[in-house]
């Protein structure tokens, strides 16, 4: 079994990395140039966070792997991201539904991690939480606008959220590894964040004139490397250059 802290840092880093890559798939395809930039900005914020967490992960592992080695030279089964972030973008409403659910959970998680007994994690969290607060604002705004918009935008946001309800529970799972790390004050107790998440999430979804629908069939497994096939296709595109030219430099 790998070092628990190495595992945990990969979870934190991979959530950001995989969603960053998904968001960057929008480049040049968003509904307007302004929206294109706002999506790319979020993607780059998340990429920066991934870099910090994965660089630290590499140091803890102590086998000479840096953030690039972890990002570009692990296979799908070695990724520790939750399933929500690897889901395909779908339409703009679906992308914003995913962004809203992820960012809100992430804001609460990072807030808790600013008090981590691991000072490096606390410092990264303090920097990242400001970025993620803006992501929450922006994505909440779109959830409300589209949900409380035209018949078509309402339907699309409803379908977007409906696709993602099944992936929400996994973000708040606390397995044995994180329970251990939480008891020593390094990790955050994800279960303790659920109440606040549900309260704020429900507020936004209701303002969007939509309905919260807890999933009867929640999916999980990402933290143990059990991913959907979509992740492999996404990684193929993300990693192809680094793997074809391992020593490439700018």
């Amino acid at each position, binding site marked *: 079994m790998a070092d628990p802290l190495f595992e945990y840092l990969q979870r934190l880093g991979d959530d950001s990395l995989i969603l960053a890559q998904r968001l960057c798939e929008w480049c040049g395809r968003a*509904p*307007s*140039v*302004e*929206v294109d*930039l*706002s999506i790319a*900005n979020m993607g780059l914020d998340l990429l920066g966070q991934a870099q910090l967490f994965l660089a630290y992960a590499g140091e803890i592992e102590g086998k000479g792997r840096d953030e690039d080695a972890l990002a570009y030279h692990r296979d799908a089964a070695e990724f520790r991201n939750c399933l929500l972030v690897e889901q395909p973008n779908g339409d703009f409403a679906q992308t914003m539904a995913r962004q809203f659910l992820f960012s809100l959970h992430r804001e609460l998680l990072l807030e808790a991690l600013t008090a981590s007994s691991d000072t490096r994690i606390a410092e990264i969290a303090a920097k990242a939480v400001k970025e993620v607060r803006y992501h929450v*604002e*922006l994505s909440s*705004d779109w959830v409300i*606008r589209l949900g409380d918009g035209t018949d078509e935008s309402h339907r699309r946001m409803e379908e977007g959220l409906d696709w993602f309800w099944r992936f929400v529970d996994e973000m708040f799972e606390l397995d044995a590894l994180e329970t251990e790390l939480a008891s020593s004050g390094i990790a955050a107790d994800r279960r303790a964040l659920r109440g606040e998440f549900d309260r704020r999430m429900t507020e936004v979804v209701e303002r969007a004139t939509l309905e919260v629908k807890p999933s009867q069939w929640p999916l999980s497994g990402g933290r143990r490397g059990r991913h959907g096939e979509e992740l492999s296709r996404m990684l193929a595109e993300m990693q192809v250059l680094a793997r074809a030219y391992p020593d490439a430099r700018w």
Partner: protein
Amino acid sequence: MSRDWPLWEVFVRPRGGLEHRHVGSVHAPDAEMAVRHARDTYTRRMEGVSLWVVRSNDITASDPDRSAEMFEPAESKIYRHPTFYDLPDAVKHM
């Protein structure tokens, strides 16, 4: 989508104490979204500490066809520049 949205002029205050400067424009459906778009378009490299947006339609501009009578008369009136006065040494900060 952006073709259906009105245009907004964007003003950025680069630092505390300086005035807001016009930097460009964005499309957005309303003022709140215009501020977000302005933030994401014009302040991503630490360009500012404050943002204003105003509907481009709400700006009243001078008529370019009338610039002769509007601006040229000022050209020959150099006495309007306060450079012809000797300032006493005691006067600071002029």
